[in-house]
């Protein structure tokens, strides 16, 4: 038995000292690192004016936004000059109800239009002006007098009635109402994405799901030229409010940009990666130069490339794809060369021991082992480029990104924003699972 194993001698004090000190040091680090981070966060909180932000933040905007995501409004407008009445969804021409098919809550008899906003709120337009009955408050009555508007309403006026000589607007939970010399308008807010499938001019609009299924299955053609199903699909596809066809095309264009850019970059970067890897290219200056080129095109960023390329190629998806291609050639070149430098030499040596030349060593010793790494990087970039292509698309005027940024910038069609955002999230998730699936399929097992 080895005697040295269990000899007990007193611990040298110096050792106890070293160890306790090292624990003290670690303890200090354990406190210092979080403290430093907190300090930095505090500094940025000041630099970013977090306190001021808290005051400026408009949470009611958030509420509006959230409700706008899922509601739509219908405008009931009378032109006060010619007396014409229009009822339209979101106030858009393409959402206008035909005069003979007004929603059931708008009733016209001669000059008088009655708008039932529900729960006792009723707006009436007549030849004298307009009246708005608000439950628990009373009747707001407006009539024009020459260039001015005369308002009759229970006093004192609440804050939700906004009055000037030329304009009266009323905002209630049931709906919004405004009266100017030129027109009177009522807005009713309702839940849901209206006209999502069929616009009002479509023969299918306003029909329930069962009715639609019935139509789809029945033999009586609405349009003798085509079956009801293809007619329906066509109506949805060309929906003027939501433009599903354009949106699908935009999604496709976004994915196309990402796909072309990523794959093109990978194809270009593979040979360059070998040139930039120290174990394959002994010429240090060439390696160094190439790596700086990679750094440069990566550092410039896709968005700037987009602008540079816009001059030469004009707007369009190819410009976007080229911008992605250029940026990613930089990223891939760097990553590929690093992957090549990190290969396992055992396999190469095994192939080398049989007397294979350098080309064959690369083919059998290197390619099989780097393929998974490269492929998984390429697939990962494909997924993340789908997201970048959204942004780049906004600049080159294509893809879902353009639709989205425009919808956000106008700040009114929030339901469209919600629709596009949902689609983008689904698209990226789909690309994510697709690339995951390919990764599993191609890398883990064939």
């Amino acid at each position, binding site marked *: *038995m080895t005697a040295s*194993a*269990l000899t*007990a001698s007193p*611990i*040298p004090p110096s050792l106890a000292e*070293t160890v306790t000190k*090292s624990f003290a040091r670690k303890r200090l680090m354990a*406190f210092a690192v979080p403290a430093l981070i907190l300090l930095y966060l505090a500094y940025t909180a000041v630099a970013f004016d977090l306190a001021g932000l808290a005051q400026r933040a408009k949470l009611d905007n958030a509420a509006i936004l959230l409700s706008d995501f899922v509601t739509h409004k219908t405008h009931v407008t009378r032109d006060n000059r010619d007396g014409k009445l229009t009822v339209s969804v979101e106030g858009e021409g393409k959402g206008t109800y035909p005069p003979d098919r007004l929603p059931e809550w708008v009733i016209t008899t001669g000059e008088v239009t009655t708008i039932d906003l529900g729960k006792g709120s009723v707006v009436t337009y007549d030849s004298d002006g307009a009246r708005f009955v608000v439950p628990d408050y009373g009747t707001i009555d407006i009539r024009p007098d020459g260039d001015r508007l005369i308002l009759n309403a229970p006093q004192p006026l609440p804050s939700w009635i906004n009055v000037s000589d030329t304009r009266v607007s009323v905002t209630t939970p049931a709906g919004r109402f405004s009266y100017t010399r030129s027109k009177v308008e009522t807005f009713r807010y309702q839940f849901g994405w209206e006209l999502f499938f069929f616009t009002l001019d479509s023969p299918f609009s306003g029909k329930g799901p069962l009715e639609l299924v019935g139509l789809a299955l029945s033999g009586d053609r609405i349009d003798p030229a085509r079956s009801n199903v293809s007619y329906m699909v066509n109506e949805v596809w060309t929906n003027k409010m939501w433009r599903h066809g354009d949106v699908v095309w935009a999604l496709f264009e976004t994915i196309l940009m990402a796909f072309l850019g990523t794959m093109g970059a990978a194809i270009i970067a593979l040979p360059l990666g070998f040139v930039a890897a120290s174990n394959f290219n002994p010429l240090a200056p060439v390696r160094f130069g190439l790596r700086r080129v990679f750094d440069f095109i990566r550092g410039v960023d896709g968005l700037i490339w987009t602008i540079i390329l816009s001059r030469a190629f004009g707007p369009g998806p190819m410009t976007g794809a080229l911008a992605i291609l250029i940026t990613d050639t930089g990223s891939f070149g760097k990553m590929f060369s690093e992957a090549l430098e990190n290969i396992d030499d055992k396999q190469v040596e095994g192939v080398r021991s049989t007397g294979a030349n350098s080309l064959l060593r690369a083919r059998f010793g290197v390619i099989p082992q780097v393929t998974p790494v490269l492929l998984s990087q390429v697939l990962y970039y494909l997924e993340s480029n789908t997201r970048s292509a959204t942004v780049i698309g906004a600049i080159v005027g294509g893809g879902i990104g353009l639709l989205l940024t425009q919808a956000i910038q106008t700040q009114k069609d929030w339901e469209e924003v919600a629709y596009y955002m949902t689609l983008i999230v689904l698209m990226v998730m789909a690309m994510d699972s697709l690339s995951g699936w390919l990764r599993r399929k191609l890398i883990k097992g064939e």
Partner: protein
Amino acid sequence: MLDVKDVTRMFGTKAAVDRVSFTVTGPAFVGIIGRSGAGKSTFLRMMNRLTDATFGQIMVDGTDILALRGAQARAWQSQCAMIFQQFNLVPRMDVASNVLHGILNRRSTMQTMFNLWPRADIIRALEILDRLGIAEQAPKRTEALSGGQQQRVAIARALMQDPKIILADEPIASLDPMNAQIVMDALKKINVEDGRMVIANLHTLDTARRYCDRVIGMRDGRIVFDGTPDQLSTGVARDIYGADASFNESATSTAIPTDATADRVYADAMLS
């Protein structure tokens, strides 16, 4: 002291441990042998509550430790130290920290996060390391140590727990012969000097024979042998291992060969 009753663990339809029952009264050194897949590890893991049993009881001083839950189960774990074949230390941390992990159960999460160990505990850890002959390694990173040293750190962590029972799952299987001997000696010494029960899964009969008071042989989850090392004949061993006569063990022994002549000369010299 330890009363194992009908302990069973199923994986799917297969019983990895099948109605194992035995009783140990004093602080014995118990060896469990059996070939790969016999259920040795699974049994020890159930004792330490790393794996749940399907049914059965393990009574320790009147408590069924298999029935404990949550904090109580963790408290039991702190009394029942486990030593693993692969050491299962935190390789990037220093040796002393790894030993101190033995008392984690008694420290709050916050204290652990900020590395707040009482000085007394640090000193105790160093004393234990010293007892195992590796005190001077205390400030090193664990991964920098040799296998035998790492396993001694694991034993030190176990001792830090001040456990009633030490479980060792093939403690020397990853070690070279020299280190294996040091580690087994250390375990034996703890068993004898401190009077702690040691239950060790062993790969090799030689070792079991040399260190254990009692040997349990398992095959396919069941106990097929339970007795003293002396009762362990080649026939019994072949039974336990299911080896057939054609397998010649000496071809792959890693030991330096016993040149009988040389040894005899040595023995003669000692005896004379």
